[in-house]
């Protein structure tokens, strides 16, 4: 009886997994077909991958877009992690009522949708001469209330005894943050890194508005361009989507274990 129940569970889970994985499978398979074969519903791998690849390279600046996407995402992730963790740490460790009030204001800022601040932001950046610059691209999302909250929540489980011990041993406050907090909070950093990297990699609206040079194209912009014409080549489109997905998938798998720990808030 128990065996039967387990079997049923597995069957159910296998079906659900197949349904979840199918779009990814279809994306990969479609990248190996001509556009018309994709339209007609090809489900098994074809032999048009290299031709699609050649056509994609001829039609778009893939290497430029990849380079830009990596550059923006990596710089964004490093800066955002440092600034937000420092802030989250500060809010929790040097905790008082005034900081709680500031934190509440920060959390309120999470409720304001980006499109609502886009026009004033554009105005400001245009006055500062930040249009078409990497700095202009990065600034609005370099510090997010969500990340600060994430770090603050995990700093809550950071044992104060260690803090006291470190102070007694003569470490200054910044070194405590650098040498003790950061290594202890690896899993939180991993999940924050995944979230930030994915957000930066996929960001579309703001970069599109502020970056008008064709040399600053990113992968999501490249994919959007491919879908725009009167006639869409679905084979090339799927290949571009596949290429665009690979880096985030790799990063997710590399940090998967820490990500799960970070989300559940484990501290060793």
């Amino acid at each position, binding site marked *: 009886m128990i065996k039967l129940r387990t079997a049923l569970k597995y069957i159910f889970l296998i079906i659900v997994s197949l349904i979840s994985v199918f779009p990814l499978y279809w994306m990969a398979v479609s990248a190996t077909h001509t*556009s*018309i074969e994709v*339209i*007609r519903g090809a489900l098994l791998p074809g032999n048009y991958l290299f031709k699609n690849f050649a056509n994609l390279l001829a039609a778009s600046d893939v290497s430029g877009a990849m380079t830009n996407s990596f550059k923006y995402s990596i*710089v964004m992730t490093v800066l955002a992690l440092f*600034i*937000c963790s*420092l*802030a989250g*740490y*500060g809010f929790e*460790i*040097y905790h008082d009522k005034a*900081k709680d009030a*500031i934190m509440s204001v*920060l959390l309120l*800022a999470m409720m304001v949708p980006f499109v609502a*601040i*886009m*026009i*004033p*932001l*554009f*105005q*400001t950046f*245009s006055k*500062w*001469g930040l*249009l*078409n*610059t*990497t*700095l202009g691209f*990065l*600034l*609005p*999302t*370099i*510090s997010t*209330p969500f990340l*600060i909250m994430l770090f603050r929540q995990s700093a809550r489980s950071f044992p104060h005894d260690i803090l006291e011990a470190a102070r007694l041993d003569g470490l*200054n*406050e*910044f070194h405590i943050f650098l040498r003790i907090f950061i290594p202890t909070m690896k899993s939180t950093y991993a999940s924050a890194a995944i979230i930030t990297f994915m957000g930066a990699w996929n960001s579309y*609206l703001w970069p*599109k*508005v502020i*970056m*008008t*040079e*064709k040399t*600053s194209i990113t992968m999501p912009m490249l994919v*959007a*361009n491919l*879908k*725009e*014409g*009167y*006639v869409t080549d*679905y084979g090339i489109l799927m290949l571009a989507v596949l290429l665009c997905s690979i880096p985030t998938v790799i990063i997710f798998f590399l940090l998967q274990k820490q990500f799960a720990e970070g989300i559940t808030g484990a501290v060793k």
Partner: protein
Amino acid sequence: MKKRILSAIMIGAMCTGLLSGCGGGKAASTGDSSAGNNTAAADENTLTVWCWDPAFNINAMKEAEKVYQADHPDFKLNIVETPWADIQTKLSTAGAAGDLSTLPDIFLMQDNAFAKNQISFPDAFTNLTETKAFDFTQFAPGKLAYSTINNINYGVPFDNGTVIAAYRTDILEQAGYKIDDLTDIDWDKYIEIGKDVLAKTGKPLLSCQANEADIIMIMLQSTGASLFDAEGNPNIIGNETLKKALETYKELKESGVMVLVNDWDQYITTMNAETVAGTINGCWIMGSIRAAKDQSGKWAITNLPKLAGIGEQSNYSNNGGSSWAVSGASKKKDLAVDFLAKTFAGSTKLYDSILPSGALATWLPAGNTEAYSEKVEFFGGQEVYKLLTDFASKTPKNNTGVYYYEARDAVAVAATNIIAGADVDSELKTVQDTVNFAMSK
């Protein structure tokens, strides 16, 4: 004390980061300025252009560059591939922020959005009538109307959105019909033939996207009617043409002559995977039809059915299409105007060279060249281009206005409700209310 100072520094660092997002601190000066600061290339002979389709309008711009370079060897174009939706977002953001310096010298604008944008952001457009560089009488009047606001021309018409009815002649033949049987007909006749074709071959004559009002708007324009009156007020309640179009739409669906699909990709699939016997759309749809190379010789093109008994009762209409605009903030307006005047409004050579990509001229002199008489094998050897130029010249004007898209979307919702059994008159009232609400009336 030390602890407090450090705490203040840490919170300060955070605030700098955050405020930079809300428009506060210039202090954060990390990063670089690699992309440079100006959008338009510094070179005086270079124009920056935004358009979106490499196979189509980008290709046309590249060809135009070559044509213009014959007399101006130093001339160059910096074409930035920008999807239409992004041009709209960038224009809206720049216009609302009052800084048009990010706009290129020339940008392509969807015809249906032209009036809306010109009225909303007048500074973003150059008055082309004033330049006296163009002879606008040489463009198809139905097409020219989109970029003409208060009798002033703000755009140079580019691609042709003339509506075609394309049919699979082999499927029609199975049911005992020829392309001539579907030429110069009205919608009643279309439905009659459609039912017969469906009964004999199992294939509907038409497929449409369920959430779009394209076919209804096509019917409407074929009669010369619009959703707005000349003053720009909604003309929906009591609009007999719209009512008739919606009733025809319902009949098409109920008779099975038209099949509804969920999205654009499915719509293309119905044609490429041979589940329908035809389609009605802007002539740019030919590109997608021709993607199925194995169907070569099996298609033919004719005009669309007319809405009998109402308005101009023509068999011609328009769907989509775009026009070039010169930015009002461009520092090289004269060059941009001269370039457009000598290419898109003055070169048959240009139009001949972009014809193979499916870019059909709305500049009428282009239609008289030999290239336009070419017989297209895919469409059974028809002189397709000549036919389309002729259709374009007969298309009634359409009055779009500022709230065209809002009205069009409301009509699409009404069409869905009517198919589900709602009363046409009450749905028209809802559409009018929706448009009035959008217009804050």
